[in-house]
């Protein structure tokens, strides 16, 4: 960085702590970025934006919130009715959770389609999966805080998942609860952890970006940057594009905050928690529905269960469901090796592209089924969709990626851009 024509104060700082050149190399003119990035590449910065909004709104909520079973529900109602702009801040936080998952899920499907997890970005992808796990834990514990009926029963059902673990399961559940049921000690620790985890996510995001900056962004063609002609400086080109994306995304986000603030929520959560009455239909937040569908697909007669448990010998259906649910996310860690193709982008792998879209639909079907009661045709569809989910990751991706012959790749990013412009 040319320090000569800097302001003397900046120069003084730069000499002692080179923040300005650091920024310039991370997000500035000196960070070369593939010039063909499309709008699917906006969702990383959008997720970052939502993370900041969640932390700011969350810290403000925590100033008014009381983590005690006798007061939690009322303190949230007080935020809604009495605290100045409390309703706005809570609705920003509440809908922010959904926006975070929308941004991150799109971000991940982008990675899956364009092969961004492939070498040399495996660790970048793996850190991303850990961010997803930390987000899930954060959102789950946040949802418990308002201490409504869904908070309480969601917490009960999810913590009870651990009771499926042989031998030590029940002790683990007691340890998580700090008592004999979900109760005040549970609420207190969830608040503490809900406050902590977003900062852990910030740490993970820093490492994620660090790994990103080693090899730079992938791009829609999936081919490597070969010369300076393939790139432009991040600033101003992508700073502007990211800000534009943020504007559009905020319109979408604020539409819900102002006009449909409870669209993503469950009315039952406005009923104070009652440990003696289970709501007739317990559903998690929408972003957990696909996993919930996988969990419930495992009944004694599900053929996948019969196979993996050797006809019921190895484990009961409850444990199998819990393991499958965790496996559905953890398997993503192995994507870089499940996919054996030399070509990253599905734009040049038509069969893989088709498989991708079927998988995407399958995830939507799982989400739909997760929100329906487990009866009749829903069970059958849920079981088939669960089977397909694992078949995609464990059979279709490894085989198609190794057998499919990709289309001819462009010579360079620059060449593909020029060709598109013709």
């Amino acid at each position, binding site marked *: 960085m040319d320090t000569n024509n800097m302001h003397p104060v900046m120069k003084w700082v730069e000499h002692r702590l080179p923040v300005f050149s650091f920024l310039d190399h991370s997000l500035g003119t000196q960070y070369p970025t593939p010039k063909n990035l499309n709008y699917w590449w906006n969702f990383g910065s959008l997720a970052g934006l939502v993370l900041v909004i969640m932390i700011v709104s969350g810290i403000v909520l925590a100033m008014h919130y009381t983590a005690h079973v006798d007061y939690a529900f009322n303190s949230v109602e007080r935020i809604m009715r009495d605290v100045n702009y409390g309703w706005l801040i809570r609705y920003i936080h509440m809908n922010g959770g959904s926006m975070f998952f929308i941004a991150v899920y799109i971000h991940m499907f982008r990675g899956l389609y364009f092969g961004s997890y492939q070498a040399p970005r495996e660790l970048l992808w793996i850190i991303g999966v850990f961010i997803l796990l930390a987000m899930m834990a954060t959102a789950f514990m946040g949802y418990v805080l308002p201490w409504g009926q869904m908070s309480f029963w969601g917490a009960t*059902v999810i913590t009870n998942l651990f009771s499926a673990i042989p031998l030590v399961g029940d002790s683990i559940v007691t340890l998580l609860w700090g008592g*004999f*049921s979900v*109760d005040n*000690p549970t609420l207190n620790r969830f608040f503490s952890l809900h406050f902590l985890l977003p900062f852990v996510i910030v740490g993970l995001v820093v490492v994620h970006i660090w790994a990103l900056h080693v090899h730079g962004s992938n791009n829609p063609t999936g081919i490597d940057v070969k010369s300076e002609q393939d790139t432009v400086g991040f600033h101003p080109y992508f700073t502007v594009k990211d800000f534009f994306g943020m504007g559009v995304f905020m319109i979408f986000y604020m539409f819900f905050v102002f006009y449909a603030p409870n669209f993503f929520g469950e009315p039952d959560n406005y009923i104070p928690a009652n*440990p003696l009455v*289970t709501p007739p239909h317990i559903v998690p937040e929408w972003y957990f529905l696909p996993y919930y569908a996988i969990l*419930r697909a495992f009944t*004694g007669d599900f053929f996948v269960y019969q196979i993996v448990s050797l006809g019921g010998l190895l484990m009961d259906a409850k444990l199998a469901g819990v393991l499958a649910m965790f496996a559905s996310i953890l398997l993503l860690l192995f994507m870089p090796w499940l996919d054996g193709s030399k070509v990253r982008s599905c734009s040049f792998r038509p069969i893989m592209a088709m498989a991708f879209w079927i998988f995407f639909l399958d995830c939507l079907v799982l989400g739909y089924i997760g929100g329906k009661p487990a009866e009749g045709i829903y069970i059958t569809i849920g079981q088939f969709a669960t089977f397909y989910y694992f078949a995609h990751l464990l059979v279709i991706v490894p085989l198609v990626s190794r057998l499919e012959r990709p289309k001819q790749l462009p010579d360079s990013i620059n060449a593909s851009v020029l060709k598109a412009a013709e």
Partner: protein
Amino acid sequence: MSDTATPEQTAEIDDQSKRDFLFVSTASVAAVGTALAAWPFIDQMNPAADTLALSTTEVDLEPIEEGQSITVVWRGKPVFIRHRTAKEISEASAVKSADLIDPEGDAERVQKPQWLIMVGVCTHLGCIPLGQKSGESKGDFGGWFCPCHGSHYDTSGRIRKGPAPKNLAVPEYSFLSESKVKIG
């Protein structure tokens, strides 16, 4: 003499193994120490002394008529106490263990056959089964029915159909007198 070590080399090797030993033993002590120091930070999450102190409940059975059930709270969970009818008792003891998902005789689940006392928490994922109040569904086996994912329990609280793996749990309890029980 290439096949015998010089005095310097021997000294070096002696020194090396001494260093390895010190390194390994220091690391082991540090690892054990860290593990020991971690324990209080894990164990603090377990139920505290006051939580444990609240963990018994006494119940007067006098007002419960035959065929009635009540729900009491014990350790933050509902406990079902049912004054069973003769018909329910005979139905429960007539079941063959081959028909049970979690085989257990009715006699093993009660101290006095007319009093069925158990934790009213579904062993699947912790919902509260229906069947305590008169209008509620009692499931296909005349006992309790969990609406969350459809588990059916019989008049002994044993799982008969649905995803739950175990019978409704029987808590520790003792009769303090003919009509008074202490749960926990």
